[in-house]
């Protein structure tokens, strides 16, 4: 059979080109869209898994819904745990099933006392997910000051954010990301009704103010670190709407104090000396350079929709990362060479084919990984090792089946042997492949890292066995294969 008439020959060439094209960008490190990224466990760095408070978000959503019920449907209602209760005696008929649905609510119970409603779970999950996406952007703008392009921020699940930063630890970042940064301004109030006392923990300063804020940080357009008589202060400016509100608030209350409150704690409570119409101001209050800068960054980025909690944090020192990688790669290479030498010793010429198959399988695997911008982690390396194992196994299956056919003196031992062995290979590999796909879909962290390299690896292994191994077998005369004894 002629070399060039076989589609496998041309397909092998195509695969080779594909491998070279996609693997090569990994080596000339300059800006390329395609690249294998290394996980923190390999290159060192630190990561935080942040969780937004689901309950708080639900409460906020319920409060908003109550406000809509009052303003649009003229209905008084209250929140009972995670349900809305509308007592009878009002014009409940305004509330058709359609309106309830359009508000994203569903009826739980209706009795003589009133109607109980709750948020439809699907709607809630969707808003939760949207809120998290929004929070991802806020966190991104907060950590952007690091100027570290390789940091990755992604949404995980419904209400989690995974932040991964290669390199050395910057303690600042934890302060910056975990603050909700809800800034509120309250006018001082002398009477007790609807009032609240805020305290500054450091200075002990106290001020009784109106509970509902007069102005919030949502209107802040810009904030920066500045110096006032050599003391670091945070200068901020409001947008147009905020400026008007701020002007109104200050002009109506000249002479009284107003509290600047961040996440429920008093920062400072200056006296309003005159109306401030320019829409900008300064916050001073025992700042260090660092804390003033952090506050400016978080004010500028806006407040997070809910409180944020760090539920997992991990730091991998760069030394361990590097040593681990070197040793791991070294170990895997030695293992690979050992297997290959064994196969050559056992199967002679066919064993050489195995070496070829393994190398092309690895090449294809890395090309796919680069193409998909996969992040390679240590569990991922383990997945690759399993892949190589399955690739070797496929070779053994083929060779043994051909050998068996020779022994039984069948007509076309090479071809039939390969074909019947490939059915077995397909069955066993596909089982593992499907399992790996489900692991990838449902798993987290290491399990995902493991399954992604397994998925890519099995596909590569099936492909090279079918194309390259078969091609090598085709072009080799039966007597040289070393399988006919």
């Amino acid at each position: 059979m002629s070399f060039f008439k076989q589609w496998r020959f041309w397909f092998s060439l195509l695969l080779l080109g594909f491998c070279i094209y996609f693997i090569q960008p990994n080596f000339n490190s300059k800006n390329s869209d395609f690249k294998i990224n290394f996980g923190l466990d390999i290159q060192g760095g630190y990561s935080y898994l942040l969780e937004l408070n689901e309950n708080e978000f639900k409460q906020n959503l319920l409060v908003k819904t109550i406000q809509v019920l009052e303003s649009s449907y003229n209905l008084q209602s209250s929140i009972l745990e995670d349900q809305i209760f509308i007592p009878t005696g009002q014009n409940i008929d305004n509330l058709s099933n359609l309106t309830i649905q359009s508000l994203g609510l569903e009826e739980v119970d209706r009795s003589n006392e009133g109607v109980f409603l709750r948020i439809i779970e699907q709607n809630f999950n969707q808003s939760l997910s949207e809120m998290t996406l929004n929070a991802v952007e806020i966190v991104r703008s907060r950590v952007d000051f690091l100027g570290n392009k390789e940091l990755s921020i992604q949404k995980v699940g419904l209400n989690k954010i995974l932040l991964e930063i290669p390199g050395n630890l910057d303690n600042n970042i934890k302060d910056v990301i975990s603050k909700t940064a809800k800034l509120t301004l309250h006018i001082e109030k002398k009477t007790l009704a609807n009032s609240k006392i805020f305290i500054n923990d450091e200075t002990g300063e106290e001020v009784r103010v109106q509970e509902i804020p007069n102005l919030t940080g949502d209107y802040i357009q810009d904030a920066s670190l500045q110096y006032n008589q050599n003391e670091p202060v945070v200068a901020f400016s409001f947008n147009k709407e905020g400026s008007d509100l701020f002007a109104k608030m200050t002009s109506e209350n000249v002479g009284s104090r107003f509290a600047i409150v961040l996440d429920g704690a008093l920062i400072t409570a200056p006296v309003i000396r005159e109306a401030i119409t320019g829409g900008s101001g300064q916050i001073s209050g025992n700042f260090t350079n660092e804390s003033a800068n952090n506050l400016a960054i978080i004010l500028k980025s806006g407040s997070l929709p809910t409180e944020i909690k760090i539920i997992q944090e991990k730091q991998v020192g760069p030394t361990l990362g590097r040593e681990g990688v070197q040793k791991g790669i070294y170990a895997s290479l030695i293992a690979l060479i050992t297997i290959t030498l064994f196969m050559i010793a056992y199967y002679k010429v066919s064993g050489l084919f195995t070496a070829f198959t393994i190398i092309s399988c690895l090449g294809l695997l890395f090309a796919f990984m680069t193409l998909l911008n996969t992040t390679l982690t240590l569990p991922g390396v383990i997945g690759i090792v399993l892949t190589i194992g399955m690739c070797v196994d496929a070779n053994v299956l083929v060779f043994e089946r051909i050998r068996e056919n020779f022994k039984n003196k069948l007509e076309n031992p090479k071809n039939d042997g390969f074909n019947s062995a490939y059915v077995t290979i397909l069955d066993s590999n596909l089982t593992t492949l499907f399992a790996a796909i489900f692991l990838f879909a449902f798993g987290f962290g290491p399990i995902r890292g493991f399954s992604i390299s397994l998925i890519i690896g099995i596909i590569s292994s099936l492909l090279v066995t079918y194309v390259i191994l078969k091609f090598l077998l085709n072009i080799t005369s039966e007597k040289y294969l070393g399988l006919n004894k």
Partner: protein
Amino acid sequence: MINFYSYKNKSYLASSLLIILTVIIIFFKGLNLGIDFKGGLNFEVRTILSNEQILNVFQEINSDREIIVKKEIGSDVHTIRIETGDDNASFIEEINQLILDHPEMEILISEYIEPTFSDELIKNSLYAMVSSLLVIAFYIWIRFDWQFAASGIFALLHDVFIAIGFMSIFNIEFNLTMIAALLLIAGYSINDTIVLFDRLRTITSDEDNKDSFSDNVNNSIKLNLRRTILTSFTTILALICLVILAPVNLTEMPIVFIFGVLTGTYSSLFLALGIVGDLNYEAVLKARDS
């Protein structure tokens, strides 16, 4: 040649004993759960200090939290695990400061996991594993028959469960990476089993074949024996390289996997086809022939 099929009752007995033993071990000794599944703090430090000296250093922090220090075999790396408690954030700061104050210790890895999140991780891992098991069962059922699906899943669970027992005996930490190791064993086990299933299917679908079921089983195994041994051998060869050469925090995994390869080979040779026979697959074959 060995009559594998005739060993099936003895194998059932041996496997039952192994499973019971594993249950007893897990019940009395428990699993050495890592912080992935328990929450808490984990540090890997490189130091010349001994375990006791490290514990002494940590005594400086006033805390009644449980602290476990373990030296990794053949290296100067120690793992320090501290259980979770109130106000973890400031506790972490304290520990970091403490280690900074002791330059004879170099932090390689520090990790903290909130207990609520570790509960979620357990649920998540179980979810992932169960769903992939169902997929495996479904695929085998479609491609072969339900007897094969049941037997394949049993062999797989058998291997994974005994590997968990192995980890319990040798006090190997059970964490997310170990879940990956167990998945590896599952993948290997099912792979090994399916190759035999496939051979049995090919042999029994031959219309000229008038052999008894037990002969067919023995034939399937015999024809695949070289492959089974070769594959297990090459895999173990590669794993031994990894055990000897891999970085310290990764040596436990190949050891568990070597154990898994051994039980996986055993379960496919002695258990899997036996179970298919005992689930009365013969009747299916007879019905098809007549």
